[in-house]
């Protein structure tokens, strides 16, 4: 069963349709990337999933419960961070978690708090006031509050913003571990590298529309290029062009475009079969180029 499902979801604010006819589904144990440049509508979509705003049209289900009609059942299975995880700075980390645990109607709260604090590595600072936390610690506490009720669906809105590279790596490992325990994770990002490294499937959002949805493996294979160093490069170029490959190259290094896994394999076999020597072959671009090609835009931020 799908843990999260969006049916034709449209949100209009004023005269503008911020997101249009989204159809997505996320399965248990899957990390689903929601990739799009800034302003594409990722946060707006996430606000609808967690019940902060209502879709203008369409419906959203979490574990089969409609978020609008049966919000309490739907949210029982949900943990989320929307934009920055703002917490009560005048309370300690523990009091914050206690606050959220109470609202989820949980029992044995103390035990749970210890467990999630340990899981995100905050156990030593859990009794400090949150206003004294660093940004990284706040993000961790954000994850802790999302996990406190053992959700089936974790919704994370650009969760690595503001983390240092070590923090990002740690976070990625945590997300993968959670998914392997059967959680469905819906994570938005404007960073391709992040999605590529963290997710199983990805939807690419541009100006409120999903313009592509695929597994990361498919996308990676989809539109990459191949760099080649071969003997008799000018002859090889002509030979490849004659067979319909798109080739750039004015010296011994050739670049062949728009290749998926199958085409790469065939190209190398045929090239060798035709008597050319292949000294070097490297895949480049991959998802990055697909993303740029698909959105036709800058990815909107620096890869950390």
């Amino acid at each position, binding site marked *: 069963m799908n843990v999260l499902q969006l049916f034709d979801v449209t949100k209009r604010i004023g005269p503008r349709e911020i997101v249009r006819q989204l159809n997505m589904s996320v399965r248990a144990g899957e990390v689903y990337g929601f990739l799009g440049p800034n302003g594409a509508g990722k946060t707006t979509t996430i606000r609808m999933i967690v019940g*902060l705003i209502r879709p203008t049209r369409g419906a959203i289900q979490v574990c089969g419960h409609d978020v609008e009609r049966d919000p*309490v059942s739907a949210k029982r299975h*949900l943990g*989320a961070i929307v934009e920055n995880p703002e917490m009560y700075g*005048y309370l300690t980390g523990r*009091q914050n978690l206690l606050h*959220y645990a109470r*609202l*989820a109607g949980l029992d044995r709260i103390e035990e749970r708090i210890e467990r999630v604090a340990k899981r995100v590595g905050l156990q030593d600072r859990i009794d400090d006031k949150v206003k004294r936390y660093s940004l990284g610690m706040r993000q961790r506490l954000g994850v802790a509050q999302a996990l406190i009720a053992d959700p089936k669906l974790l919704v994370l809105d650009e969760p690595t913003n503001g983390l240092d590279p070590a923090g990002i790596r740690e976070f990625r490992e945590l997300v993968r571990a959670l998914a392997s325990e059967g959680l469905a994770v819906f994570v938005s990002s404007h960073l391709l590298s992040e999605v590529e490294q963290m997710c199983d499937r990805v939807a690419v959002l541009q100006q409120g529309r999903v313009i592509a949805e695929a597994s990361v493996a498919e996308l990676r294979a989809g539109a990459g290029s191949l760099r080649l160093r071969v003997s008799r490069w000018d002859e090889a170029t002509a030979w490849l062009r004659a067979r319909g490959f798109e080739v750039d190259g004015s010296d011994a290094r050739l670049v062949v475009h728009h290749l998926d896994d199958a085409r790469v394999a065939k190209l190398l076999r045929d090239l060798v079969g035709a008597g050319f020597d292949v000294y070097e072959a490297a895949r480049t671009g991959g998802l990055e180029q697909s993303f740029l090609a698909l959105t036709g835009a800058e990815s909107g931020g620096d890869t950390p």
Partner: protein
Amino acid sequence: MTLWRVVQNEWMKLVRRRRLAVVVALALCLVGMFALGEHHEKQIYSRVPTQAASADWKANAKADLAAAEAQLSLLERRSPTSAGAAQALAALQQRVQEDRYRLAHDVGPISPNLLNGWAETSQFVGAATKTFIPLLVVILVGDMVAGEMTQGTIKLLVVRPVRRRTLLLGKWLVSVASSAALSFLLCFAFLGVALAIDGPQGAMQPEWLNVHVRFFTQPGALQPTPVAMYDHAAVWPMWHAFLLQSALVAGAMMAVASIAFTCSVLFPSAMVSTSAAMGSIIIGFVVAAMARGQSWVRMLFTTHLSLYGDLAGGTAFTVGSPVSLAQGVAVLLVWTVVLLAAAFLRFGRQDILNA
């Protein structure tokens, strides 16, 4: 129960916010000012020459009662038609009621060089409930929802498996409970200060409740003359009346808290919502003062912030038209219910976009 858990949370947040510290500090200032004032007044009173507490006050009271009753029996058949006649009648009625109360409860008058701490407190509380205490309440709860909108914490709150109306109800309950508690504590802090400075005498002195104010139009006068009438008045010991007054202050402050709470739902910025709540109270007073004598002034919630004044007659004098406690309670209730309904409607369906 979910509501109870929401209430526990909201209480935890309320007592740890800096706003509570601000309110407590301001409240302590207020108590300090009252103490200074009392101390000063006591100095003045102590210069009045002492009179030997007259042991034969009972004889005097009996004689006065007989005289007043005799005069009253001459007047009572006719309902007064002029302010002068009404004042004469009221004075006689009050004398009779006081003498009867003193004789029945064996309560002599207190020496004129002593202050009555109970009466002092009652007077001060009556003024504070129309000015300072509402401002403290607004500071305390004027951002219950707006604060979370401004901070962005509303997002992680609404994401929980709790209905929005339950969240709001819990927040409202904590707002009114904390405002009532604040008012009670303040009233008793004033009382404690007054009794410590002035001494405990006066607890049994008479206090008139259920005083109706009648307005007499005099030829040539611009405004009708108010006269406090004692036909249906009840005489209570002051300590008893003070308890009632504290309860009424707490009740009125719950209404103020509800109004401030609604502002915090309607205005998403903590600053704007607190200012709007304060502004509505101040505007209420200004309008009431400008429109004194108009009967619709009785419909303003600011008119009834001193519910005890509705009962003891003070409110009618300031408003310029007759009021009763039942009216005051009804007006505050209607405002509270209508505004809360707006708050619940708004919060229940609002898109939370900018938090």
